[in-house]
């Protein structure tokens, strides 16, 4: 099967993730959507790697996973602390600062 289709899939996933970021209120979900976008990138990398016949893409995928993990650590820390002090994980509630 033509690996280009994987690219289309990646793009689709990326778009879904982005849309999720835009429409979901819960910080956790939003964050998960970001993760989805990162994974879409991974898919793209791997697909390209396959097409180009070199390993860079696959290596980058590993890096991305690590980065994603790190982001989870930091992100969850922040979101949780926010949740604990506000008893809500809605990103819309967090709008003290505006204008």
């Amino acid at each position, binding site marked *: 099967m033509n690996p280009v289709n994987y690219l289309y899939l990646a793009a689709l996933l*990326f778009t879904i993730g982005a849309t999720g970021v835009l429409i979901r209120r819960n910080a956790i979900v939003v964050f998960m959507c970001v993760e989805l976008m990162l994974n879409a990138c991974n898919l793209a990398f791997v697909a390209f790697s396959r097409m180009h016949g070199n390993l860079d893409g696959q290596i980058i995928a590993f890096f991305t996973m690590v980065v994603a993990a790190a982001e989870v650590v930091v*992100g969850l820390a922040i979101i949780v602390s*926010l949740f604990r002090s506000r008893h809500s994980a809605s990103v819309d509630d967090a709008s*003290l600062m505006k204008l």
Partner: protein
Amino acid sequence: MSAAAVHSLWTTAADPMLKIPAPKIEYGQLSPTLIVIGAAVVGVLVEAFVPRRSRYYVQAFLAVVALAAAFAAVVGLAAGGYGTTKAHIAAMGAISVDGPALFLQGVILLTGLVAIFTFAERRLDPEAHGNRVDSFAAQAASVPGSDSEKAAVKAGFTTTEVFPLALFAIGGMLVFPSANDLLTLFIALEVFSLPLYLLCALARRKRLMSQEAAVKYFLLGAFASAFTLFGIALLYGYAGSVSYGKIADVVDGSVQNIDPALADTMGNDALLLIGVAMVAMGLLFKVGAVPFHMWTPDVYQGAPTPVTGFMAAATKVAAFGALLRLLYVVLPGMRWDWRPVMWGIAIITMLGGAIVAITQTDIKRLLAYSSIAHAGFILAGVIATTPDGISSVLFYLGAYSFVTVGAFAVVTLVRDAGGEATHLSKWAGLGRRSPLVAAVFAVFLLAFAGIPLTSGFAGKFAVFKAAAEGGAGALVVIGVISSAIAAFFYIRVIVLMFFSEPKADGPTVAVPSPLTMTTIGVGVAVTVVLGLAPQYFLDLANQASVFVR
């Protein structure tokens, strides 16, 4: 793609030892980064093993020493000619050691150093239970106003983790502008972003706002970096490599692709254009260019002021460094594609920042918008696509970062019962109450406004001149118009400080320790010196204005 090719792929994968050569790392040339990262790691260990009482001192000392040493290393490298003649690409093509890299690393390190001083400042807030406190939460994990927090305060906890975090961030920033392939770029981006997200959340006062800032920064930052990453993926798909050099070759068309099987990806301009746009977006997000700027005011306002200062100065430097390298090393071949886009962004950034700033009522938000406007000015220099453009941007970044750190340091001084009094109305009559501080802040504001005899003017002149020479005359005109608009709100603050009556319940100006004094002093000194005799630094920027490729 033929089965044989696939097979060959597998076999290569199966027999790595022959193919993958042992990487050769020029530790000497990477020493600045290594020192800082190393110190950061040590800092983590300090957190683990050194008793709480003495951590602050150890951490602060460690950070200062590390940054100083790293700066010394940068100077050493520059003196060793790595900025000019011996400039080359180190670490297997991951990191480039050249003029712009060293210059920006130097700026970042110095800015970081003076910023660290403000991190370490603990004379501004009144002592809590006999413990000197800094601007960071006693215990970030405890809920604001909760008993655990009170207990933490009583116990005199302090979040000394800020030092290693800052060091990590600086480490990432050092790599960011010198990254020579997209992967390193991305990693560096994350390495300096993540600690910043955390630092934003650590304010001692107004913790809700601080956390909110962190969340916003984090989510939007992650969102942006996802775009960047996808852009990288596309570029990789376009060029078959993430190394700047290789991509550039493909862009220039100097490599004809061999394998017709790859025709639909390799050298596919759609991939290139979309990828570039997305990567650029990630960087523009970091520099706070319209329309990717909206995080800036909220985060600047919510974050602890020392962090804001650090972020506003260092992040911009690093991000613009990376942007320059991307546009000048990777994409000179397609500047006719990106220049118009950058034009548009520069224009809306200059105007947008300046105009919205007019109606701001919070000094930190005001400075945030001013930083957006300045991003626009710098972009004008970036667009020049001439050596002068590079040097002018470098100079501007150097000048701007010190003014910024200094300005935010002054903001930390003006306090009332609720901590820093950042609402502009509180600043009324400050000049009457404490002339010196007001005068210093006025100097910074005038520098922001680009009044002659300040570094701001020299920088602005440099970038506008470069832009004009680069054929962007219209951009210069819009630039001067928006700096006229910008002048208005800087002046407004000065009017407020000097010409309006002090409020009865006005804020007091805390007397800082030598640490903050140094920060402010350095800021003023650099502002004035670069205003009166910029020649030396311009030369420096000039020599440093050649990218290695």
